């Protein structure tokens, strides 16, 4: 049960992180509403709440589960997200030509 709670929580944190990135940086699809004050507050609050909850519920095991579920969830999300349909790019703007777009290999 605690694992599902932690994985759900980390998934939310990673999605909030992606949502915070500028559009030209957001290579993986993320369909959350635009980042606002609530999301900015939630992003640091969720891991802290997860850590507290996991430690209270499972003690030392909870602390380690909190640590281990973060990369595991991120890895699964990173592999899954590119296969989901992308949101349409903003009109009249080629994202690859944006001056902030990083230069990648072909």
């Amino acid at each position, binding site marked *: 049960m605690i694992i599902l709670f932690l994985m759900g929580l980390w998934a939310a944190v*990673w999605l909030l992180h992606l949502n915070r990135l500028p559009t030209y940086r957001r290579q*993986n699809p993320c369909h959350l509403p635009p980042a606002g004050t609530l999301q900015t507050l939630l992003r640091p609050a969720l891991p802290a709440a997860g850590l507290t909850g996991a430690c209270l519920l499972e003690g*030392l*095991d909870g602390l380690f*589960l909190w*640590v281990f579920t973060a990369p595991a969830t991120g*890895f699964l999300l990173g592999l899954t997200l590119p*296969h989901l349909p992308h949101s349409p790019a903003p009109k009249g703007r080629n994202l690859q030509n944006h001056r902030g777009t990083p230069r990648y290999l072909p």
Partner: protein
Amino acid sequence: MSPRLRTALRLFHRWIGFPAGLFLFVLCFTGSLACFSPEIQGWMQPRTALHSPLPAMTRTGLLKAGQNLKTQLDTGIFAFLKLPSPRDPVFRLWHYDGRIFLGPALAPDTGLPLTDHDVTGGTFFVTLHASLHLPNPWGQILTTTVGIGLLVTLLTGLWLQLRRFLPDLLLFRPRAASQRRWLDLHLLCGTLSLPVLFIIGLSGVILQSQKLIHMMNPPHHPAGHASRHQAHTAIPPSLSPAIISSLTENGLRQWGTVADGFFMQTGREIGLYGPDTLHFCLQRQALTPSHPTLPPRSVCPTVHSFFVGLHNLRWAGLATRWFYCFSGLMGCIIIGSGLVLFLQSERNSIAHHPVSSTIRQRLQRSHEAVTIATTLGLPLATLALFWSTRLPTPFSLSPILWEESVFFGLWSLSLLHAFIIRPATCQQLALVAVLGTCTTGLDLLTRPFHTGRPLLFGAVDLLAACLGLAALSVLLHLFRKQAA
């Protein structure tokens, strides 16, 4: 970052990462297996899994097992008696042969032997992880050096990726070019599990360094002290049923449980050591007939005990151990993808210089061969070891000798095969796929169908099947690429 610094960092990352990565892959893979050492022992010895419901330890069983321990000690073998626990529900009358723990498994209710032959077991992977089965101190020196290599590679990798660390944290483009895809996978796993890998690596380096220091300056032991590394004891201690019963009762009073504890000679007496699972820090305290109670002790008595707790996670629950094992496998993905990237960039470099020397091409060939032997040969040898424990031993060889020969022989053959034959990758992938996917069939054919631990067998079979299917999917991908 200046281009000169970037070039220097890339050089360090590549040329420390590649040689260290070959050994680190082995350490990560065997470390992941070592998380489930007792379970692997149970899979390899299916008769010790018993029938459902699992019998509990009884006084009769304990006394009979104690009698067996006394017999072994009297014959000069430095054995110890591990008590049943939920992870390993039988008595283990083990001794250390310098590389692995071996000895009979005894029924928890009767104390009678359960299996007719020893197997290499889970401790084989623990030793491979700790010292690569090399003699002391070379194994420790090598693992310490490789561990330092891991830390250096992680730090240089972090420095190289620092600017893009957060923006590219979850970036993976499966439809990009091959090199970009491998780099994305390398960075995805590397950045996400960087803190975990750093802590695991650092704690491992500290533990191995402490071992090396102890080898150079051996700690002083009182006269008559015996250790598990000794093949023979000088004077066997007195071990009567009354002593065993009283020590067990004291242990139950002191710790609440004796499951996973063990009886071992300490000084001139027999001692009951508490379970390692009770505390985060390793606290090897023994109750003896002359010291029936333990004085209060700090939570973490030494720095060593703290790092053992942090690195081995013996105290952790099942879920935490699964995630720890998964972190080790993530380490394998990072190192494996790093090795592939290294080979690709070397290949590109040779392709861009048409007049490459023969030596450089041969070097490239040898890099490819050792990478194949590490990333494919090791899983192949591991699966073969699992198979060899279930199949009859040919000729009149000792089972342990045969199983170890299968493991190391197949691993060496994998290296030789990769050196000699060009499409070695496809052939070895096919072998991993066959062995991995057929493990479930082998398991069902070579053990009693009704068992007390169906989840144990199911989990090992499932992991082997996943390994086989992963190899099969890579193989199919390679075939499709060749056809295109």
